[in-house]
């Protein structure tokens, strides 16, 4: 089990370089894959596909609604289009196109949302993306996948291409700690248990997976043994695994680079309140816009530090003792 993750987390690799390379590999494997960009290919590194397959790369300009609509046209022609722009633009400016043609009609379009979370850190809140999971998750028929490191990008991208129907693939701009070993074999729709523990479960996605693992090592020193589940697929949620974690560990913490409203925390919360109400703590952005600054410092300042995960886990575990499992309102305003 431990062999899925590296013993020493900390070496970082560029997720966008991994994405560009994975796209090129995909292009070599499948000639039905086309790549479209709203003039951001030098940002998200989809330019690597352009360099390898210029005939299958299309820059539609700074026009996100057209980006999605042109991709819909390609899908109608039997192609597997990957549309590329900044994550927040799919969930906001181009949302109607996504809802109508991808979600309602099922157009087989793949959306690669670049610079998600706070990862476009120095560009600030206009470019940061903290509500995309909540917005897109509310729509029927879309599949949402959040890779946690460059290995995950490489392993999940071919599955995204092969998946029947629309997929939103959420990508980080920056170097991301390498979590997984080659033994990691994710499957869309199924969470991956990375560490065993019976006191609590941390369900994390994206860059928060590395931080969750680091948090568990601190918690182990306090004799709190924590299970870490990597939930790379936010929708459809692996509810069976969530409920099993709830029953077996009795407390859950979610950790995501997103608002605590409506994303992974929201999805897990909905699942637990219906099937297995137990103490839940959500780590993420607390319903606020953020600011510009260094990426790691921003994550720390806005509630996604390793210490925040540790504190949330302690809190969840302590609440297990309270048979009502209700959380005092004052404590929640910590």
């Amino acid at each position, binding site marked *: 089990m431990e062999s899925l993750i590296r013993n020493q987390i900390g070496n970082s690799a560029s997720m966008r370089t991994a994405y560009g390379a994975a796209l090129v590999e995909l292009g070599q494997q499948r000639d039905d894959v*086309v790549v479209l960009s709203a003039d951001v290919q030098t940002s998200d590194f989809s330019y690597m596909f352009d360099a390898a397959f210029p005939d*299958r790369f299309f820059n539609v300009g700074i026009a996100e609604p*057209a980006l999605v*609509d*042109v*991709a*819909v046209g390609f899908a109608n022609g039997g192609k597997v289009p990957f549309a590329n722009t900044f994550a927040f633009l799919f969930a906001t400016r181009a949302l109607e*196109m996504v809802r109508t*043609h991808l979600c309602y009609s099922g157009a087989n379009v793949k959306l690669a949302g670049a610079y998600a979370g706070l990862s476009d850190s120095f560009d600030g809140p206009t470019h940061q993306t903290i509500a995309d999971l909540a917005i897109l998750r509310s729509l029927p028929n879309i599949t949402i996948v959040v890779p946690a490191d460059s290995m995950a990008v490489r392993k999940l991208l071919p599955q995204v291409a092969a998946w029947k129907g629309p997929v939103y693939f959420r990508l980080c701009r920056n170097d991301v700690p390498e979590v997984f070993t080659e033994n990691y074999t994710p499957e869309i729709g199924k969470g991956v248990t990375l560490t065993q523990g019976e006191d609590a479960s941390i369900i994390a996605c994206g860059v928060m997976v590395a931080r969750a693992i680091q948090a568990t090592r601190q918690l182990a020193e306090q004799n709190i043994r924590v299970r870490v589940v990597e939930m790379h697929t936010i929708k459809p949620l692996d509810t069976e695994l969530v409920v099993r974690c709830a029953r077996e560990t009795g407390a859950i913490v979610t950790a995501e680079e997103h608002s605590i409203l409506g994303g992974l925390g929201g999805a897990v919360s909905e699942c637990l309140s219906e099937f297995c109400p137990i103490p839940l703590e959500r780590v993420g952005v607390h319903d606020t816009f953020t600011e510009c600054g260094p990426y790691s410092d921003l994550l720390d300042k806005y509630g996604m530090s390793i210490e925040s995960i540790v504190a949330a886990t302690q809190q969840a575990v302590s609440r297990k003792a309270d048979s009502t499992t209700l959380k005092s309102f004052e404590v929640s305003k910590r």
Partner: protein
Amino acid sequence: MTTSSVNYELASHVYPIGMRHTPEMIADLSCRAYEYRAHVLRMVHGAKSGHIGGAFSIAEVLTCLYFHQLRLDPANPGWPDRDRLVFSKGHACAILYTVLAHRGYFSVDELSTFRTMNTRLQGHPEPSKTPGVEVAAGPLGHGVAIGAGMALSARLDGSRRKTYVVLGDGELNSGVIWEGALVGAKFGLDNLVVIIDCNGVQQTGTTHHVMPTEPVADKWSSFNWHVIEIHGHNVSEILRALDEANEIHGRPVVIIARTTKGKGVSFMENSPAWHGGIPSGAQFESALAELEDGAAKWRA
């Protein structure tokens, strides 16, 4: 069930692409456009909801496309090399469904299920429900960009299939139309033909009053599209424009069809009230009589 005076054998007749436009063919297609309007009237009257005005204005254009221009196989709606028709002005879909039924995609009887529960003929088009429908429409403005994607896809396949997009002129208010126009021109998509139903009226008033878009021809011309302007109820002009579009190389083509909203029923013509108006019993009878007269003139 609708009852109809249409002779289905005649109605399903397709004039092969490339054939000479004979007077008989022109008269027949013109006559059918009126008969199809009568179906639309029955459908909207039956459902007590729907959009008549914009369906009537595009009747001749759709009839020419489906019964002469488009290479299709109704028995095999997913045939990869079929021509594509993007019906961007989705609210006017009663005429699209009527034409699809007569082209053989489904039974004409099914038209009476329009906008009812469990129907395949939804209030706005949806490809997974209705055979022959290529993309969803209703939210306006999608057609050009989607058509551009279809045309690029065809080019990538080395296919000669063409993409036709039917727009309403009210859609020109929408920014994504012009995003799509830029994309079409950038890639020189001469396998893409956009037809604008310029009926001059949208939901709350004339286009001139709501959002002036003239000079429409100059706008598209300045976006590097080849522009053809026609009388959109004149079958002969429509057929010639579609032929001309086939001869243009290196640029996409836009056909500006000057039409009349509510065409064929005097009290509906040019009236925003008939964008989404529902005829009363008396209005229904009177409209039906006018449409039958319109068809009869071409039968003579």
